[in-house]
C-alpha cells in the first residue's frame, strides 16, 4: 500500500471534488434564483413568511455549522501536524454539530407542520399565493440542504474511521480534505439560506 501512495494523484482527486462542488453551487444557485424572482413578485408575502420562522433556531444552527466547519478544518491541520488524537476529537465534534443541527431542524419543521404550514396544507392552499411559494421554497431548499448534511456526516464518519485506522496520514489525507470541502460547502449554502429565509424584513 505504501508504495502505491507515490502514484496517487492528489491534485486530480481534489480537482475532481471541486468540479463536483461547482455543480452543487449551480444546483443551489438555481434554487436561489427562483427565490429571488418570487421575492420581487411577492415581496410582502415573503416578509410575512419570514416572520413565521424562528430566528433563534436559525441563528443557533448558523453558529453550530460555523463551529463544525472550523472543527473539520482543524482536523486537517491536526493530521498534518501528526496530532491524531486532536484530529479524531475535532471530527467527532463536527459530527455532533451536524447531529444537533438535524435535531434543531426536526423541531423546527415539526412546529411548522403542527401549525398547518407544510406543502399542500389547508392554510397555505387557501392563503396568499406568495406565502405558499415562500414555504414551498423553504421546504425544498432546507430539505435538500438537510440531505446534504446527512451525506456530509456520512463522509466525515468514513474519514473519522480511516483516521482512527491510520489510513489517513500526514502525507495521505486527500479523503479527509475532500470530506472537509463537502462539509464547508454545506456550511457555505447555509450562510446564504439563513439571511434569505430567517432575516427577511
Amino acid at each position, binding site marked *: 500500500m505504501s508504495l502505491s501512495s507515490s502514484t496517487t494523484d492528489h491534485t486530480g482527486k481534489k480537482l475532481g471534488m471541486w468540479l463536483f462542488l461547482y455543480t452543487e453551487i449551480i444546483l443551489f444557485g438555481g434554487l436561489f434564483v427562483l427565490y429571488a*424572482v418570487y421575492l420581487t413578485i411577492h415581496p410582502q408575502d415573503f416578509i410575512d413568511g419570514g416572520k413565521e420562522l424562528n430566528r433563534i433556531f436559525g441563528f443557533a444552527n448558523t453558529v453550530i455549522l460555523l463551529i463544525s*466547519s472550523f472543527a473539520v478544518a482543524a482536523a486537517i*491541520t491536526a493530521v498534518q501536524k501528526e496530532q491524531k488524537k486532536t484530529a479524531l476529537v475535532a471530527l467527532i465534534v463536527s459530527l455532533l454539530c451536524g447531529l444537533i443541527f438535524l435535531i434543531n431542524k426536526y423541531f423546527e419543521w415539526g412546529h411548522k407542520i403542527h401549525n398547518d404550514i407544510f406543502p399542500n396544507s389547508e392554510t397555505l392552499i387557501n392563503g396568499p399565493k406568495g406565502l405558499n411559494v415562500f414555504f414551498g421554497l423553504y421546504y425544498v431548499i432546507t430539505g435538500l440542504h438537510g440531505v446534504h448534511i446527512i451525506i456530509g456526516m456520512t463522509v466525515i464518519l468514513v474519514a473519522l474511521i480511516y483516521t482512527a485506522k491510520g489510513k489517513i496520514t500526514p502525507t495521505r489525507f486527500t479523503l479527509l480534505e475532500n470530506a472537509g470541502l463537502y462539509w464547508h*460547502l454545506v456550511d457555505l449554502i447555509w*450562510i*446564504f439560506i439563513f*439571511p434569505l429565509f430567517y*432575516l*427577511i*424584513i
Partner: protein
Amino acid sequence: MASHIISYKTLALTLGALLVLTCVTVGASYVDMGRLNVWIALGIASLKGALVVVIFMHMKYESRILVVSFISTLCFLAIMIGFTFWDIAFR
C-alpha cells in the same frame, strides 16, 4: 506532497470573524432600510462565504487551475442570475 498547513490560530480567528459577521447580519435585520436590507444581508453573506472558501476551503493556497475554475463558476452563476432578471424586469 508539499501542502500548506493552516495554523489553529488562523482558523480560530476566521471562526471568530464569521461569528461576529453572523451577529452583525442579525443586528442589521432589525433596522428597517427597505430594499437595502436584502443587499446588506447578501453582502455580509458573501463576505462570510469568501472567508469560508479562502481559509477553510484552502483556496488561498491552491493552484491557479482551482482559483480560475472557481471564479468561472461564480461568473456562470452571475450570468444565470443576471439573464433571469433581464427577462423578469422587462416582461
